[in-house]
């Protein structure tokens, strides 16, 4: 089995919370989240040698692209199986999701439920908004213009507001 290069592992350690948040947004069940996480890591591992840094473009932009592309394009095709074929990912530490408790737990749970009812594309908008990405970065991740990001973002916020006010 191939060993992951140290810079890849460092990247993974640094951005693991980000990847976990993507998984959490796109999958409700913990097993599915873990499956998606492994799939994203596998795709990152394969794409990492081709990654080329560009001026004024953050590494996180590329990571969001990979994670969201995997989540959107392969989600319902996944079948649960015990182990991973991706080199190096079997040995990666299994970090549990951050617990959702405390005084805001109910609100957060309600928010996740509402987000869960959005389309895959809308979820991507919500995620990037919650992650406090700029419109410029969102446009760079999604591949649409900043103006369109603004329009779409407004619609998604409206949709989410309606979902939060109406009973599930």
């Amino acid at each position, binding site marked *: 089995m191939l060993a992951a290069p140290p810079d890849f592992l460092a990247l993974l350690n640094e951005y693991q919370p980000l990847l976990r948040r993507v998984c959490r947004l796109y999958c409700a069940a913990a097993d599915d989240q873990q*499956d998606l996480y*492994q*799939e994203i890591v*596998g*795709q990152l591992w*394969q*794409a990492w040698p*081709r*990654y080329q840094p560009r001026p004024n473009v953050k590494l996180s932009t*590329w990571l969001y*692209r*990979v994670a*969201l*592309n*995997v989540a*959107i*394009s*392969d989600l*319902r*095709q*996944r*079948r649960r*199986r*015990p*182990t*991973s*074929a991706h080199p190096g990912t079997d040995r990666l530490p299994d970090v549990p999701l951050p617990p959702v408790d405390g005084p805001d737990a109910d609100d957060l749970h309600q928010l996740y439920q509402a987000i869960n009812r959005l*389309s*895959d*594309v*809308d979820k*991507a908008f919500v995620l990037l908004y919650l992650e406090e990405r700029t419109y410029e970065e969102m446009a*760079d*991740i*999604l*591949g*649409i*213009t900043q103006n*369109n*990001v603004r*329009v*779409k973002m407004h*619609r998604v916020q409206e949709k989410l507001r309606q979902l939060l006010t109406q009973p599930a």
Partner: protein
Amino acid sequence: METKQNSIGRLRRNARWELGFTLMLLVGSTIGFFYVKSLETRTMLIWLILISLVSLGSYHRHMLSGIRGLSEVGATIHAHVAQQVAGIRQILEASYRSSVWVVFSTFGIVLFFALYKALTQYSGRLLLIQLVGVGLGCVIAVVVSRFTRRVARQMLQDLYGRHLDRLEATLRELNHSE
């Protein structure tokens, strides 16, 4: 060890198996061609070599380029989804065409040899019976070809159709904001 593969991984694995089989067929037919003496068998082997070459040149090339396009996950979401839709369409088209082409060429070989045998070995009433047999064979070939087309379309729809529909919906949604 059990392995986990995503849909693209499975597509790639299947394409590699098909490619391996075609290469084996090509090598086997070419070796066989130099060993056998019968004209009939040699012509049959030429057919097989031709089918393998056409498959390698067209079907596998389209298939692999389609799959290669699906693997680029570092692109923007719009570009990635558009590429997925185009790649899967390309794969579906290649699979569908190859299914039809294999049935068509198989019947072609069989009927060609039946006709060749009838014309060179029979005469009079026996020739007429043979020709009627070839004619019936042609009718069966048309029926089976149509059936294969329908089955191939249904099978591909079951395998990739839903995934493709979902990706197209995602792409429409991204375009809708434009």
